[in-house]
């Protein structure tokens, strides 16, 4: 049984059909990536899974249970955690509060403290800045905070929306390395990226989305080698990121 199984998911934004019936699966322990250009429906997919958007039709099965149409609070409680596009850390909360609010629904104080230590081990910078307001951090630090905050919810399925957006190449490299480490500890990752080559190198499998539909799927390496993918999404990027 897959950890996440999307069946014929359709989402409308006003009159626009943002998702026209997509289906895909994510197995426990995998890193799966959705790639595609702007407006392909990648973010919409993640928002629908996390409950921020209500699907018009289709099914979202998670751990064998139907979670279609649940609220964000309920999906988070079940371990489906989204790191939103643009990081969206709380600028008026301290770094420590940002991390604590990630564990908002948990009441196991001792374990929350353990997880906090774990996040601080993963991102020592955050520990140094724990009393600073989130808004004073640099872009890369904010991304680390957003990932750390998500980890505080003990995700079983960690969904990341464009973690590399607006970050310097070196920082992107760090973030991707950490996504790999998080995955190695058993957390399943569903990753959306415009930086397709980096995502495909990291992911076991990938899906290519075009205007609300999935039109290609395969292993990360197959998609990397696929000529149409190279032409459409890698292009000059593949050369730029060849060094990564």
């Amino acid at each position, binding site marked *: 049984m897959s950890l996440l199984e999307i069946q014929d998911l359709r989402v409308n934004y006003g009159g626009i059909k943002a998702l026209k019936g997509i289906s895909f699966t994510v197995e426990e322990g995998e890193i799966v990536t959705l790639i595609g250009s702007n407006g392909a429906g990648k973010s919409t997919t993640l928002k629908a899974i996390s409950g921020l958007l209500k699907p018009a039709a289709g099914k979202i099965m998670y751990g064998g249970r139907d979670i279609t149409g649940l609220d964000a609070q309920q999906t988070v409680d079940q371990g489906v955690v989204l790191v939103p596009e643009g990081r969206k850390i*709380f600028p*008026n909360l301290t770094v420590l509060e940002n991390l604590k609010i990630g564990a908002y629904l948990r009441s196991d104080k001792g374990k929350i403290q353990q997880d906090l230590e774990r996040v601080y081990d993963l991102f020592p910078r955050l520990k140094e800045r724990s009393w600073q307001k989130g*808004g004073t951090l640099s872009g890369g630090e904010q991304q680390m905070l957003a990932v750390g905050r998500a980890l505080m919810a003990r995700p079983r399925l960690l969904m990341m929306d464009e973690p590399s957006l607006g970050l310097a190449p070196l920082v992107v490299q760090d973030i991707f390395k950490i996504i790999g480490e998080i995955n190695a500890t058993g957390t399943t990752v569903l990753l959306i990226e415009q930086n397709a080559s980096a995502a495909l190198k990291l992911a076991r499998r990938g899906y290519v989305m075009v205007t609300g539909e999935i039109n290609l799927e395969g292993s990360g390496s197959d998609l990397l080698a696929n000529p149409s993918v190279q032409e459409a999404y890698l292009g000059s990027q593949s050369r730029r990121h060849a060094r990564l």
Partner: protein
Amino acid sequence: MSFSTFIQHCLTGISLGGAYALISIGYTLVYGILLLINFAHADIFMMAGYFMIFAMASFPWQVAIPIVILATVVLGVVIERVAYKPLRNAPRMSVMISAIGVSYLLQNLATYLFSALPQGYPTIPPLKKVIQLGSVTTSLVTLITPVLTILLVILLMLLVRHSKFGMAMRAVSKDFETSQLMGIKINRVVSYTFAIGSALAAIGSILYFTDRMSVTPFSGTMPGLKCFVAAVLGGIGSIPGAMIGGFIIGITETFLVAFGYSTYSDAVTFLFLIIILIVRPTGLLGEELTEKV
């Protein structure tokens, strides 16, 4: 003006300011969370005045005060549920219009139910107790109001800064969607915010009307506007700002009246509004508004 009259006016001003401060906090809290100027807040305050009249008709003041606070909280939360919650994703202007509608609804409802004639506000015996401080004579309410206001503000700030709920409030005030992703129930946070604002308005109304002695369906309008100005003056969204704004306006108003310029006392309040909007639009303690990206 003799020294003792001066002190007398100071006390009256601080006391009026305290009542204003408690009402201003309701504006500032709701604005902080929903970016909504809750025009109905003034009328919630007015309704609290009527609740007291009815509560005191059948209960002693010790029972009446909690009843009034509870009834006002229920009114505030119900208004939010009925008039604002369905518009959560609507443009801000729609919610504002809904708030103006609720304001008129409450005023007209009060006129219909209680008539437009002033109703005598009941006397709460301990608040009216006369106190002699040297050559200054004052009632206990004048002394209690500022102390109670500052105490409540400190409690509220502790709640906002150091409790888990306060953390959720601050998160919701910045970003609804991301707060939901943390598992925060937005509607619950909003309801509690209205509950707190309404409870403070109820306490403010008891302190305010005890001095004024009567309530009409329009008793809320002018103090409501002034308290909104106080909230803007202090920096809307800031709790200590609202308190400071309330005190500034209360004291200024009292002294204008004392010097014989009572005709201008309302005008000066709005002059403050204009000046602060020109000179420092974020208010005394308000933070710079950064556009959400």
